[in-house]
């Protein structure tokens, strides 16, 4: 008999979601859907506010990656002022984003995903979490938590608080790094590198064992999108947008965020509050593309720092080209932490990070602006229209997790098809379905600009539409 499995709520992700798995009459998986069930309305209630407040307001979308919204909003503000941000201001913004990458990726890897790898997909869900990890490998757990703290503290040293520092403003930033802050970061760098290498080596060993996961966790051809620098190097703040396909062919390059409407469409499905962006020239849903750590490593030609480039080459060797398995997001995340640490190290020797000339002043010079920045989870767009006094008339936010929506749905379908046969579903298999989502480290609070937490609910739905089985986890 046909049925549907429902995983609700999805655990160890940021936000609230459920997964429905649809079975056919033979009990085989026909389709699977990742539903985002929260709604917030930031784009609406920002209307009428002065644009200068947008960085502060949109940062509140998320407690994990407020820096991403802060930077995208400040960059959109730069466009409205039509000013050039002082060199030191840009470097400082970059520094904060690198701190953000470090802390967010460390959170995703150590706190949220590593319990699956290290404790086992089928281990007891009661301990398959960061506390179980602390019990099983206290040294690794402590190192991971301290690596996240390193990133968070960089944010605090710059913006005076770890979360929701309203420090990046239209035109630049409010203040430079203090000498005390610089000393602290320098002293903590060696330990952070060491933790990262431990995790990276551990993950590479696991990768040799997890051949099924590598094959089944969202391995499919798709486009990848991300920012790249002038010379095709890895970017997280500036540069231009590039689309590349799984074979490595550059489909579109030197795209400007200002024209995002011409290459990104946003589709809506009745069963999710999360929109489905797609690459317009290929249409919906064929224009499926992925963003985030794996996409950034796939679109760039090189990273631009020695150790990270070495690891990038190794990753591509292991995958035999550009990796297309979403399981490689974890791998890419670790390589990005390495790149971030190397770039932070470079910035510590740059006199600009303590320069006082960090903010350009101007009035409203443009009535419309689009800002783009790489959030840890992928490319983030802010688009504002203002009146002649600078009051917001219209806001559109395109969030990384939304852009991965099609890919996440494809990933859960692939995993469900591989692991689920018939009505009885072992918990460990459901966990693999959830883990498919965790590869993308989705932030649903961001992507729907929504409130709440993210537990998981899986529904098993029969061919006749009847609910046959469901599993809740809160």
């Amino acid at each position, binding site marked *: 008999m046909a049925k549907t499995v429902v995983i609700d709520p999805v655990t160890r992700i940021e936000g609230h979601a459920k997964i429905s798995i649809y079975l056919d009459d033979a009990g085989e998986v026909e389709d699977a859907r990742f539903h985002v069930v929260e709604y917030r309305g930031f784009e609406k209630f920002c209307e009428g506010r002065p644009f*200068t407040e947008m960085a*502060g307001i949109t940062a509140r979308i998320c407690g994990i990656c407020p820096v991403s919204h802060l930077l995208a909003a400040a960059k959109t503000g730069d466009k409205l002022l039509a000013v050039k941000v002082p060199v030191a201001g840009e470097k400082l913004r970059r520094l904060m984003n690198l701190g953000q990458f470090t802390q967010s990726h460390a959170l995703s890897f150590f706190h949220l995903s590593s319990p699956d790898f290290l404790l086992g997909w089928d281990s007891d869900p009661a301990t398959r979490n960061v506390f179980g990890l602390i019990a099983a490998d206290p040294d690794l757990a402590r190192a991971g938590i301290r690596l996240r703290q390193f990133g968070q503290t960089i944010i605090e040293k710059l913006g005076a608080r770890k979360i929701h520092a*309203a420090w990046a403003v239209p035109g630049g930033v*409010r203040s430079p790094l203090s000498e005390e802050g610089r000393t602290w970061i320098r002293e903590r760098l060696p330990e952070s590198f060491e933790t990262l290498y431990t995790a990276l080596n551990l993950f590479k060993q696991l990768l040799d064992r997890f051949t099924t996961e590598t094959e089944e966790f969202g391995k499919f051809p798709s486009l990848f999108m991300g920012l790249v620098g002038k010379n095709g190097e890895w970017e997280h703040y500036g540069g231009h947008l590039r689309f590349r396909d799984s074979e490595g062919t550059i489909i579109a390059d030197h795209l400007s965020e200002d024209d995002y409407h011409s290459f990104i469409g946003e589709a809506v499905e009745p069963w999710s509050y999360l929109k489905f962006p797609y690459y317009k020239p290929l249409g919906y849903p064929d224009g499926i593309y992925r963003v985030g750590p794996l996409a950034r490593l796939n679109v760039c030609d090189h990273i631009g720092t020695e150790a990270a480039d070495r690891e990038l080459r190794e990753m591509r060797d292991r995958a035999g080209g550009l990796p297309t398995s979403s399981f490689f997001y974890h791998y890419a995340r670790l390589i990005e932490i390495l790149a971030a640490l190397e770039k932070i190290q470079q910035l510590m020797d740059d006199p600009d990070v303590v320069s006082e000339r960090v903010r350009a*002043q101007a009035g409203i010079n443009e009535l419309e602006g689009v800002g783009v920045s790489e959030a840890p989870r992928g490319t983030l767009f802010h688009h504002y229209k203002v009146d002649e006094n*600078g009051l917001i008339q219209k806001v559109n936010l395109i969030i990384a997790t939304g852009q991965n929506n099609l890919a996440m749905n494809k990933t859960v379908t692939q995993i469900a098809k591989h692991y689920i046969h018939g009505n009885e579903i072992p918990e460990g298999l459901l966990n693999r379905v959830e883990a498919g989502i965790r590869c993308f480290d989705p932030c649903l609070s961001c992507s729907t600009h929504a409130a709440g937490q993210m537990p998981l609910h899986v529904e098993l739905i029969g061919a006749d539409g009847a609910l046959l089985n469901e599993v809740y986890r809160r």
Partner: protein
Amino acid sequence: MSVKTLTINDQPIAIEEGKTILDAAKEAGIPIPTLCHLEGVSDVGACRLCLVEVKGINKLLPACVTQVAEGMEISTNTPKLQEYRRMAVELIFAEGNHVCSVCVANNNCELQDVAVEVGMDHSRFVYRFPDRGVDVSHSQFGIDHNRCILCTRCVRVCDEVEGAHVWDVAQRGAACYIVSGMNQPWGEVEACTSCGKCVDACPTGAIFRKGTTTAEKAGDREKLEFLVTAREQGQWTR
């Protein structure tokens, strides 16, 4: 000049006739919370935070506009007053749209300070979420009516110190709001001298310098000192 003798919280006090209970308390070093009171301009008793109890009078009196009288026995901090003050602050929060986390005056706000002072940790009243506007038509300043508590300090400082009388209060009751000129956009009011006294006088983030972002409104309370002495010292610009 005759002197009145009275007690505040059982402390005997002698003060000139014509002074207010708030003056007397200040002289005796007894704190009474205020929001609409601003040294150097007239008092209006708008915020009701300075309410005190006077023995023999069965209603609460605002200390800022009640003159001292011989033999008054005043209490400033009874449980009843504490409860009423907290309620007054909660009502102010529930009335407008006060979102501290993204406000220009966060950490530099008298409303925030007073909420802490009266021990408010949340509002027991349902928020009204009124639909109010923001006027940033002035070249340097803006007014966000969402954050206005109708203390009228801007009205009084503009009228009594600057002499421009740009501001007034329109409507009645819950519909009240501050208007500039003849209910025109601020930027079109010719009487405005762009002196910025209203920005300094505003206790919240309602009137601010344009371009200010979250928590950036400088809480320079010394500017208030300037407002008080400006007329005597002939200082018309800062």
